[in-house]
């Protein structure tokens, strides 16, 4: 069991962004971070999440302002395209930095 008393003050895990800190959302954010944009089908293919699950997580990320959604019709088929906002990119970098800091500061 972890002795919380050993954790240095600078490594405050409470600073970690909980929107990103969920594995499925982290995976979605990671994909959108390295890509300019991707549609729902691509994300579903790559993350192996179900439609409903992916849709739910994307809605949460969108409501946090981390992604923008564009709905277009291509050959009368709807295409929902997601791209990461600057806020999302900054949040992703901060999340990474916070976690890194947390583990770096934590002497075993």
């Amino acid at each position, binding site marked *: 069991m972890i002795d919380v008393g050993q954790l240095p003050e600078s490594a405050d895990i409470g600073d970690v962004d909980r929107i990103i800190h969920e594995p499925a959302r982290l995976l979605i954010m990671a994909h959108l971070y390295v890509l300019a944009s991707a549609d729902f*089908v691509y994300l579903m293919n790559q993350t192996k999440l179900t439609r409903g699950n992916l849709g739910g997580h994307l809605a949460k990320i969108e409501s946090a302002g981390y992604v923008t959604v564009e709905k277009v019709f291509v050959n009368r088929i709807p295409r929902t395209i997601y791209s990461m906002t600057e806020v999302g990119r900054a949040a992703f970098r901060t999340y990474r930095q916070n976690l890194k800091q947390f583990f770096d500061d934590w002497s075993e």
Partner: protein
Amino acid sequence: MGSEINLKAIEHNAEDLFFAGGTAEIACGIYLMGYGLVPLVESIGIHGMIWLIINLLICFALLRWGKKRFFTPRIGFVKLGGGMTRNLNPRKRRMMIIALTATALGILIMVADDLFFPAESKPYLFGKWQEVIFYVFMLVAVVALVGYTSWRFLVIGTGTFLAFNAESVLQGLLQPIPGGLVGWGIPGLMVTVFGIFALRRFMREHPVLDAVKDGEDGATDD
């Protein structure tokens, strides 16, 4: 859910998928075949450079259509860039600079040669080495682009160049005036056929997604 969260792997996967499917190879092959038609179109009064630009536009249009027709319904729509271009690693940046410099130098040599030594007043600026130098620069450009994009292009790009260059270099060495561009048609055809096989395999391995068949993309409406 895919358990691996590795930005580099995600980036490589997206690049590999983007270049998968054979459409890029088909477009490249058709461009090379178009290159081979230069003497023919010039014989009917169309300037070779204009034809090459039209050919390039045709190939870009074909590539776009191919991606839309075969790639998107199977893999989904993806646009490369984002974090990749923002955080372009030094190796990729170096490769891109080498490719652009080599291409610029190669074209400069060809243009300088045509401008200062038109066909009537041969010998060439660089003598019989002019075409050899040009193709060496082009080869450097292709290899650098391979380093920039995907190693799959190593087989296609350099293979095509070496196959053609063997003849071209020999022509450059043995003959003062080469008519080597005609030879682009054959490697172009080879690359196109390779692309068609790659496309067939891609279509077999990646059936059209059910959501797309149903006429929807699966995203829930808000």
